[in-house]
């Protein structure tokens, strides 16, 4: 090891550790079409499953006739609820403590619901046979409006008849699921009663869908000889799926191996358990052959987990000067036919109680009522921590509404209400302890970067020109300062179906000084193999290029709760740092033995232990690794590896300041994003290039959601936006240029100070786009208008304000 000539900085650079914009190691295969996704898996004798789905949103299933389908050559089986009932598998538990039909048991509750499962020798035969299954339906009245549903005599969930107690407390009506309350109702109402100013508004965050590039799917393979079930699937939480499969099926957990191969995006859509998984497992157990099921795009949009659909009634109180004194929110949450939200068990509305946002609001109250309707189940965290995007959108709209009421500049209103840097750790009125933040610094930096005053001057001039008939375009400036809560989470209050939300890392150093690490999370595009190797590289001084990261195979990876809610870096990333430090501690003892000094006489120096005061006497990590395996060291076991299961003491609270500048054509409703500035503070930055990529992708999804993407139903409960013709996914053409920026306020409780970033751009982006639309029309009297802001809805605002003559 003759690298004594290199400076410590040069040695650190060579490691490509934390802070390095290292290229993504995954992209070598992805950019060559060499990824290995579920649908790439081909096993001998593999059969294919296809669903027969309900065309009705609410109907009784009178009969299912399989005969014609079974007569098709190559059809192996057609499963219905009747076939699953003897196994107790016609219903399954949901992550939210409810239960859900696997196959229609007497009735259907949403369009696209699974009614029968056809198993055939190839997917063409399966699709043909699915057409031939004859289902006799008797239509029932349809409820698509949650407010109506709470008043209606129509009972959606007859299976719950008479149950006045749900998984989260009392049910007030047969279509009611739960009420969840946080904060101090009486105190908040008192503050509202006494306030100088109260602004009130209904803020609707429409139903949308994560729509990952790869849809959901699985291959179930039961080996009747060994009794082992291997389940490949698009799972964001493979270990949790293994436990759930074991609990549902009764198969012993050691006989189940769950593998998440490459995943083409998840965004929350791939957290839950779907009928397709259960039916494929049953079909494989029954036939003894592997069974593949992959949903198509329309099935994905229609039937697997949606996101949002929150009606948030808000009241915000302030002094005349604009100091906020209280916040009140009542949310009506449309959960669809079954409550299949993916939230930690004690949080039926997720972390919606982060809705006080970045502001020091002394008194607050939040209540959420969950409601059944004839829509698809879900309610997942689409590129956000549990209901955090809803919360951020709510508060960032309420701030704007308050600014209008106070006739104040919305940037200034935010500034005077921010939690101050010296108030952290900050105890929020709705129960959270914010770990760290410096909002004023970020805000000032953002306003300066976009020349906020200049933009306002330009806007004022534009308004004059508009009024003088010289232009038909308005200028909107959309402001957002968001605070997230991610990294679920402390096991003491975060579990899913009783499974604690810790995460894990196991690292093995090989004798020649390279390594393999395995974690309980699973990448769906986040680049774990790149960034987690960087954490290890910095912690133990081996080059990131020499470290393999493996995840997603429950037979080899340590148990963990998976990747969603920006939890990989806060939780699995912490486990990775802690496991690395265990290795370093052992390495120090080995180095001490080799250098014939006391442990305490050594100091860590980038990639080596050196004798204090004698830097020329050292052992590099590579040398230590070799010795760990090949030299008898008294008192030490051979080998160099470590495992950490990390239960975080708190969540992390990333934040950011986003500003959108938008041109709006009042005659057509067309919009054009002229500038989008995104400042993120995610604490310690592991790979700036990956952060930038995450922000670009997340803001693009936010653009889609705010400006057009929705799952819309007609009054019959038909999905109106079931294809990508109508469901908006931006292409390169619609996607604006982004300017990214950052401040760094590390998390004080995280081993490396990192907070997570993947979801920030969605959380901050949606209100920034929506606020830009609102801001453009604010001078003409607009207070609130619902997303998505597609052409006709923007046109409707202009029309309502009398802009079309």
């Amino acid at each position, binding site marked *: 090891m003759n690298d004594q000539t290199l400076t410590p900085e040069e040695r650190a650079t060579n490691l490509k550790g934390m802070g390095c914009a290292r290229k993504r190691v995954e992209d070598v295969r992805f950019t060559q079409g060499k990824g290995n996704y579920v649908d790439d898996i081909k096993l001998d004798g593999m059969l294919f499953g296809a669903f027969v789905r309900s065309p009705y949103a609410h109907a009784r299933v009178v009969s299912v006739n399989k005969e014609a389908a079974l007569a098709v050559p190559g059809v192996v089986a057609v499963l219905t609820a009747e076939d699953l009932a003897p196994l107790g598998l016609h219903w399954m538990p949901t992550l939210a403590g409810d239960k859900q039909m696997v196959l229609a048991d007497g009735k259907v509750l949403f369009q696209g619901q699974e009614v029968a499962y056809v198993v055939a020798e190839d997917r063409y035969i399966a699709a043909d046979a699915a*057409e031939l299954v004859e289902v006799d339906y008797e239509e029932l009245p349809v409820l698509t409006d949650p407010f109506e549903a709470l008043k209606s005599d129509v009972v959606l969930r007859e299976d719950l008849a008479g149950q006045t107690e749900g998984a989260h407390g009392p049910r007030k009506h047969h279509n009611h699921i739960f009420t969840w309350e946080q904060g101090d109702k009486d105190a908040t109402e008192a503050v509202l009663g006494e306030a100088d100013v109260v602004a009130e508004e209904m803020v609707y965050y429409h139903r949308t869908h994560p729509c990952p590039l790869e849809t959901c799917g699985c291959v179930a393979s039961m080996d009747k000889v060994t009794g082992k079930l291997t389940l490949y699937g698009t799972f964001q939480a493979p270990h949790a799926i293994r436990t759930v499969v074991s609990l549902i099926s009764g198969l012993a957990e050691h006989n189940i191996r769950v593998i998440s191969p490459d995943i083409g995006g998840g965004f929350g859509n791939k957290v839950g358990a779907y009928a397709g998984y259960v039916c494929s497992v049953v079909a494989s157990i029954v036939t003894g052959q592997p069974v593949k099921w992959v949903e198509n795009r329309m099935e994905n949009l229609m039937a697997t987990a949606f996101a949002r659909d929150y009606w948030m009634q808000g009241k915000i109180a302030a002094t005349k000067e604009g100091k906020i004194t209280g916040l009140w929110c009542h949310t009506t949450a449309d959960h669809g036919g079954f409550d299949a939200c993916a939230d930690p068990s004690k949080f039926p509305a997720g972390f919606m109680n982060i809705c006080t946002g970045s502001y020091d609001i002394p008194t607050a109250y939040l209540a959420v009522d969950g409601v059944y309707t004839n829509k698809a189940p879900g309610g997942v965290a689409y590129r956000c921590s549990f209901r955090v995007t809803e919360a951020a959108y709510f508060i960032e709209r309420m701030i704007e509404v308050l600014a209008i009421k106070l006739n104040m500049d919305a940037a200034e209103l935010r500034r005077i209400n921010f939690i101050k840097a010296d108030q952290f750790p900050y105890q929020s009125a709705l129960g959270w302890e914010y770990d760290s933040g410096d909002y004023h610094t970020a805000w000032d930096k953002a306003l300066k970067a976009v020349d906020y005053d200049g933009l306002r001057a330009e806007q004022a001039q534009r308004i004059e020109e508009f009024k003088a008939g010289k232009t038909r375009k308005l200028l909107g400036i959309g402001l957002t300062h968001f605070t997230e809560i991610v990294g679920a989470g402390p096991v003491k209050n975060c579990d899913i179906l009783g499974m604690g939300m810790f995460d894990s890392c196991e690292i093995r150093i090989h004798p020649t000084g390279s390594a393999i690490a395995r974690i309980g999370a699973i990448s769906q595009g986040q680049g774990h193999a790149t960034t987690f190797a960087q954490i290890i590289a910095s912690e133990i001084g081996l080059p990131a290029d020499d470290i393999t990261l493996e995840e997603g195979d429950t037979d080899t990876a340590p148990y963990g709760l998976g990747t969603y809610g920006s939890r990989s870096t806060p939780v699995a990333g912490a486990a990775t740092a802690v496991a690395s430090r265990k290795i370093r501690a052992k390495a120090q003892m080995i180095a001490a033995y080799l250098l014939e000094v006391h442990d305490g006489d050594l100091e860590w120096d980038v990639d080596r232990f050196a004798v204090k005061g004698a830097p020329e006497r050292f052992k590099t990590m590579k040398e230590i690794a070799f010795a760990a395996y090949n030299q008898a060291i008294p008192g030490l076991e051979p080998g160099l590896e470590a495992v950490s299961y990390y239960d975080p003491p708190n969540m992390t609270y990333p934040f950011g300041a986003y500003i959108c500048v938008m041109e709006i054509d009042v005659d057509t409703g067309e919009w054009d994003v002229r500038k989008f500035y995104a400042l993120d503070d995610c604490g310690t930055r592991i790979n700036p290039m990956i952060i930038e990529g995450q922000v670009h992708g997340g803001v693009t999804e936010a653009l889609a959601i705010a400006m057009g993407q929705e799952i819309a139903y007609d009054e019959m409960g038909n999905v109106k936006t079931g294809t990508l*013709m109508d469901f908006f996914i931006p292409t390169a053409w*619609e996607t604006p240029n982004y300017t990214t920026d950052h401040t760094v306020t590390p998390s004080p409780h995280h081993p490396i100070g990192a907070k997570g970033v993947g979801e920030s751009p969605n959380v901050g982006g949606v209100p920034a786009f929506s606020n830009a639309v609102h801001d453009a029309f604010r001078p003409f009297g607009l207070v609130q208008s619902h997303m998505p802001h597609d*052409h*006709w809805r923007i*046109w409707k605002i202009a029309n309502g304000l009398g802009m079309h003559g």
Partner: protein
Amino acid sequence: MIPAGFEYHRPGDIASAIGILQEHGDEARVIAGGHSLIPMMKLRMAEMGHLVDLQAIDELRGVEIGPETVTLGAMVTQHELITHDGLTAAIPLIREAALQIADPQVRYMGTVGGNVANGDPGNDMPGLMQCLNASFELSGPDGNRSVAARDFYEAAYFTAREDEEILTRISIPVPGAGVGQAYEKQKRKIGDYATAAAAVMVGNGTASVAMTNLADTPVWSESASTALAGGNVDACVTAMLDAIEPVEDNRGPVEFKKHVAAVMLRRAIDRAQSRAG
């Protein structure tokens, strides 16, 4: 997203293609670029026992630029319409419109013949061809005939073409020098059909205006064209608004579509006038 089974045919000339259509009647359908038909087959909204692929028929290809007339083979792709310099020089409107169809991947496959034969009110080429006063050459068991684009469309997916006929060529009179042309289209995103689109030619005391996706057929309006030829833009717009019959869909309600139709038409007229000699 899996179509029902079908028999695949790949004839080498028009006569054999017609023969196959005759043999199988309404069980058979021709396929050109497939970018309207295949999605319908995958949705199982179109099912046929026999698919007759026109890709191997050379007679259906080629662009001919004459002094009076431009002729497009039915199998000319939308991409070729954009990249053919001679065509752009003769009738710039075609390139301008083709650039607003879908995305490059669709345009590499999608053909002009498929676009006009399809009969989908969302397609851009039918309105364009009506504006240009093109005519469609059809070959069938009883020989050849020509139908004016303005007479071709009967209702959504219903055209003057008989089941056993193939659309072989499109003839377009070259607009005189000094005629300004413009195609204006509002859509929600790339790959979307028009919320409203307008094709306009004006100059030398003549005018022609047609609009897309605002009724169950493309709408060419004689009175709107006459009004514009006489220089009366307002009357042209009023006449066109009388002629269209938009329906509500995810792009918006009728009131919005009518408003946008007027905006698109005015913008197209403005641009066409500014290009007129």
